[in-house]
């Protein structure tokens, strides 16, 4: 280490003397002392004494490598003992030390100490520390990669037999499904027919009752119900003022002028029954304490519906019909009877259908289960677990990070979650959507998106920054913008072999 350092030092010292300020050795050939200087973009030739004369002549800024004159120029810090670098010309002589060797502040009056050796040392130590971690991590990664490959192979191996088994079952399942559908259809048809017949019968009975009531209500027996018929019937004195006024009567006629039997049956009968029953209930209330019947009746009516029901009561009022009524016109209003049991032949059809359904279901759930297994296996195969599949080990695991108030959880390839420390509920910060690192460092970042919607904000999302570490751990969580989270996750899966470094990308 020391030797290479000395070498480097010697090298630059030798060459620096000939170079204009701010020029790297690699560009020395362009800055050879001559009569003229040609701008590096070739756009202009200027007298050589205009190089670094604190005036920008070249459009590309190449004539002022050592001053701040060119807005687009750059200054080279040699930084012996540390990494050399370019800085924008605007940082030359701005009274702030940018180069660790202090070379950028050559004319500002600011004394910048040369701290390259300390920095270099610190950097090297830091790099060494990182290398130790990376070395350990790299070893773990190899192991992870092996496991990852096994997982992959396992799943690869699985897919074939699972698919074969599934494909075997599918025709059986389809056959059973057909059978299930056929028996289902037969059962339904028979039941429908039976029910229809019963309903016809019942309606006929109902019509008879309706006609009876019509006749009873038609006090003047003119075959029509009019206001008069109601006005003269004390039953309809709803407000009990001894009179049936026009308003009261009208409500019973449902806003028609008159009604014949047909109309009465179609539009009024059901409702009038309700009305009469209500009157009946009221009477009973006065006599005794409220009985079961009323409670039942109340339950059947939603508070809000009461009013509406009075006008539009339909079939489901039938359950109320079996209540006795002492009011004469209604007292023979009795149940039309309930539908009898299905006959034996229909019951047989039912049990046949049930059997077919059970048979189908058994096979179908087997197929579904296989589908799921195949999907899972394929997910492993299609998922990008890195070049060596080391990441596959992390799928299905979760890692937590504790902060003041919250615990954060990352389940790689699945989801990111936030939990309140003393609470039970979890907030989803996003589901895995893919690798988002910029090439060539694709595996340095993952995104988790479409988490829980923020109040007055976006759906939560989480960016996971991935670093090399000796073990798998979630080490940091932050929320740079509202509902946009950022995790730092360390894992050996992100470690490269420090002793076989990737090609160095110089920032030059």
């Amino acid at each position, binding site marked *: 280490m020391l030797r290479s350092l000395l070498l480097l030092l010697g090298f630059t010292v030798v060459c620096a003397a000939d170079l204009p300020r701010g020029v790297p050795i690699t560009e020395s050939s362009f800055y050879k002392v001559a009569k003229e200087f040609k701008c590096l973009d070739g756009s202009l030739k200027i007298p050589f004494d205009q190089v670094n004369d604190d005036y920008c002549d070249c459009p590309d800024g190449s004539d002022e490598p050592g001053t701040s004159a060119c807005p687009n120029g750059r200054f080279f810090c040699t930084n012996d003992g540390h990494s050399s670098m370019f800085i924008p010309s605007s940082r030359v002589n*701005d009274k702030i030390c940018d180069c660790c060797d202090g070379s950028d502040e050559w004319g500002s009056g600011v004394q910048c100490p040369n701290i390259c050796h300390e920095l270099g040392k610190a950097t090297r130590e830091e790099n060494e520390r990182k290398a130790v971690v990376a070395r350990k991590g790299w070893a773990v990664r190899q192991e992870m990669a092996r496991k990852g490959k096994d997982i992959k192979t396992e799943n690869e191996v699985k897919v074939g037999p699972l698919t074969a088994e599934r494909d075997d079952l599918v025709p059986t399942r389809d056959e059973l499904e057909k059978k299930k559908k056929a028996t289902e259809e037969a059962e339904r048809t028979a039941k429908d027919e039976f029910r229809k017949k019963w309903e016809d019968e019942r309606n006929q009975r109902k019509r008879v009752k309706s006609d009876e009531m019509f006749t009873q209500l038609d006090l003047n027996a003119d075959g029509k119900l009019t206001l008069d018929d109601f006005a003269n019937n004390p039953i309809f004195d709803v407000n009990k003022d001894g009179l049936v006024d026009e308003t009261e009567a009208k409500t019973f006629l449902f806003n028609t002028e008159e009604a014949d039997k047909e109309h009465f049956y179609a539009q009024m009968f059901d409702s009038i029954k309700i009305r009469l029953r209500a009157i009946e209930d009221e009477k009973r209330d006065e006599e005794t304490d409220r009985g079961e019947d009323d409670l039942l009746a109340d339950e059947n009516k939603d508070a809000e519906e009461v009013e509406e029901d009075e006008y539009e009561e339909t079939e489901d009022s039938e359950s109320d019909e079996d209540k006795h009524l002492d009011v004469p016109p209604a007292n023979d209003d009795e149940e039309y009877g309930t539908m009898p049991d299905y006959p034996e032949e229909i019951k047989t059809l039912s049990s046949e259908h049930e059997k077919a359904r059970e048979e189908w279901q058994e096979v179908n759930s087997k197929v579904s289960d296989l589908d799921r297994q195949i999907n899972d296996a394929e997910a492993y195969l299609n998922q990008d677990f890195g070049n060596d599949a080391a990441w596959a080990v992390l799928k299905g695991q979760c890692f937590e990070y504790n902060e003041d108030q919250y615990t954060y959880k990352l389940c790689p390839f699945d989801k990111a979650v936030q939990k309140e420390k003393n609470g039970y509920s979890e907030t989803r910060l996003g589901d895995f959507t893919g690798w988002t690192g910029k090439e060539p460092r694709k595996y340095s970042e993952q995104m988790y998106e479409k988490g829980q919607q923020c*109040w007055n904000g976006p759906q939560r999302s989480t960016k996971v920054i991935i670093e090399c570490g000796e073990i798998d751990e979630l080490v940091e969580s932050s929320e740079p913008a509202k509902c946009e989270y950022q995790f730092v996750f360390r894992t050996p899966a992100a470690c490269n072999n420090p002793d076989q470094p990737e090609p160095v990308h110089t920032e030059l």
Partner: protein
Amino acid sequence: MRRETWLLAAVLVFAMAVKREDFKTCDQATFCKRHRSISENTGYAVDFSTVQHSGAILTATLKGPENELSLKLTGLDGGRVRLQIDEPAGALRKRFIPEFALSGVQYEVPFDKVDVQSDYLTIHCGGSKAKVVIHQKPFLVDIYNGLNELVTQVNAAGKLKVEHFRAKMDGQEYPEGFWDESFKHFRDSKPFGSSSVGVDVSFVGFRHAFGLPSHADAFSLRSTVNNGEPYRLFNLDVFEYELDNTMALYAHVPYIIAHKKQRSVGFLWLNAAETWVDTRSSEDSKGMFRTMLNKVMADESQPRFDAHFMAEAGLIDLFFFVGPSSQDVQKQMAETSGVTPIPPLFAIAYHQCRWNYNDEQDVAQVNAGFDEWDIPMDVIWLDIEHTDGKKYFTWHPTKFATPKKMIEGVASKGRKMVTIIDPHIKRDDSYRVNKDAKDLGLFVKKADGTTDFEGHCWPGSSEYLDFFHPKTREYWAQQFAFDRYEGSTRDLHTWNDMNEPSVFSGPEVTMDRDAIHYGGIEHREVHNMYGMMYTSATYKGLVERTAGKDRPFLLSRAGFIGTQRTAAIWTGDNTAEWGHLRYSVPMLLQLSVAGIPFVGADVGGFFGNPDEQLLLRWYQAGAYQPFFRAHAHIDTRRREPWLFSDETREGIRDAIRQRYTLLPYWYTLFQEHNATGMPPMRPIFYEFPSDEALFTEDKAHMVGEALLVRAVVDKDATSVEVTLPSGENKDTLWYDWESGVERPAGLNHVDAPLQKIPVFQRGGTIVPTWQRIRRAASLMKEDPLTLIIALDKNGAAKGRIYLDDMETFDYKNLNNFCISEFSYATNSPKEAKITGKHADSNGAFKPVNWVERIEVRGVPSEPSKVISSRGLTLPFAYDRDARLLSIRKPGDFAGEDWTITLNF
């Protein structure tokens, strides 16, 4: 700023619109309704037997059917007249005069002469600067400018009304809301009854009037008479304000400037109470106030602009500025209400703000990000989340645990920081400021005058400091001392927000009007100046913390007459929509003409997420507005420039760099403002008082006298139409600012692709620039200058530069400044001379800035030789097609006298 937890409901109705029903209409403010409905002359007459005058003061009694009033006319220096109408001596209660809003002593100039005729008085003001005629019956005041032109009238429509203080009598009938008024579930007890005042003021011969900031409306004042709501001036925290609206916003200056060809006139309503202004521009005398007009105006066809001012309390206290030019009016206003001290350089550079930078690491990353992308930036801001529980002067214990270190980190790159400090003080005995203020009795009191007023704001239950109490101002100022404000350094500056004041739980989101301030003053009497009193105390603290050495920077949201003396203000919580970008220009012009020049709008829009195009265009507009700060709501996505596409990031970088290029010019403009009152950002008519078609222009504006800016403020626009004024003699030349290519006066269609900011340089001007753009402005102070000279029709130009240390008060205390004037003169077809001249011998500052380059635009032919002061031949380049000359390294210093000779 914004309200989050408290107004959940407001946001849930997410139509991105103000909740109008939360704010009063004129009809809901009973005094406004009463004044606005006046339809006949209220019948005042001057009792001539009471007229007395001596020196610069004339007094008289006004008698009317309602009551008797006392009138006082004062002649002030520089073409200013003050007219006060109050209750006579012996009134039940003294009316509040916001003297504190004025700049200090208002110098009186004795009248030259007072003529008394049978039914009118003529007062000739000192030095023939103005003349006032007071008519006896009905009472009417005519104001003439120094050219003896009638420019302003008072009470021409007879709307003078003063509701005098009285004792409440049982059985007596009072107007609606006179002793008690309710709005929504808030009740305003009015123990003293209504004491409202109102009068009409007319600008005779003027069609266009401007001012009455701040409203999200056009620059040219609209007519509100019989046309919607009057302009409302009542400082309020308005959540998601709407455009095209006369509703009140955060800052108000009751001031109007009217302009016609070559003439301007100004009017100030010195009253700190809620004020409404009903306006009308009429083409002839058959306007709003026709009754009186026929009598006094010979010329029936004259336009006029009428403004009916109505205030809830206070007295009628009117200042008239007679011009005759806009520059004169601006100076007259500046003499009355003061000017902005020259800001430190960083303050006029670019500010990076967000609610909130999350922690110290975040701040460090943002700081580094600007360097990484080589984008200049001078200030990083911290919003309320930096505190410990919204207790100002504290730091969040974990997120901002080492503030001093953080600030030093930012300052090590030549940058500054700003923290927010609000006037609501968390109710918490363990909070030092609360305890001190309670012990010392420094809080505003409830209507009972003894209990501390309590309301809700960011910290929850809070109390509000009473800045009308001298002890409060003293105490507050002390809190900024470095040993008191822990973690602060001289690189930390201040942002005063929520100072309308904003009270989430109060009526119209502000303080109850019957709350009591020092001396028994009701809040209603002083409401509009609360924020100004607050910033003045903060400013005092910031000055005193360095014993008067460093110039502080302070931003305020609320504003009033005089705010400019201590703070910059911004247009509050705007929205990331094109309309809000568009309206930033008229809103800033309103403030500028009303005497508040250091103004800006949140770049990018506070609420919502701007798309890249909008964000970039906003940066471009902001780069040419006085206060240049990007800011965003906590619910928005991050907006640091490098988070966008390369094209957007480069465009933003370029816009910011254009700002930094022009910093020497902006700095000089702020010094010009300091000396003359002229705002750096100004309407076109200030520079071109005869170009009538441009009087109401509010998409384009001037920056100083040299640059006309017409930023793109419309979505998807790739070109703009801009009319370049031709000037009085129809011979003004214009040049594209970036390329230097000449542009004809008149209508121009200018290509404006995404990266382009349409800016034009006026022929005849010289603009000093910095071309070495560094990461922060403070690092550029000593850099060489490039002068950009644009020639006029006569081949001439002039300009100036003001330089000092750009950070201390030495310019004021030690005359440590330098003013240099530059000129270009074509003496003959054979010769031209460029000169630099040290222009103010009082200035002791010796700038190290040398002139590295001179660019001359509109040079008709190539010079044969360019010779420097020292006799050296200077290299130059000449572009025949574009007629541009660039002189290489003249090398002269900005503060010295020098001449460069051009031979042709």
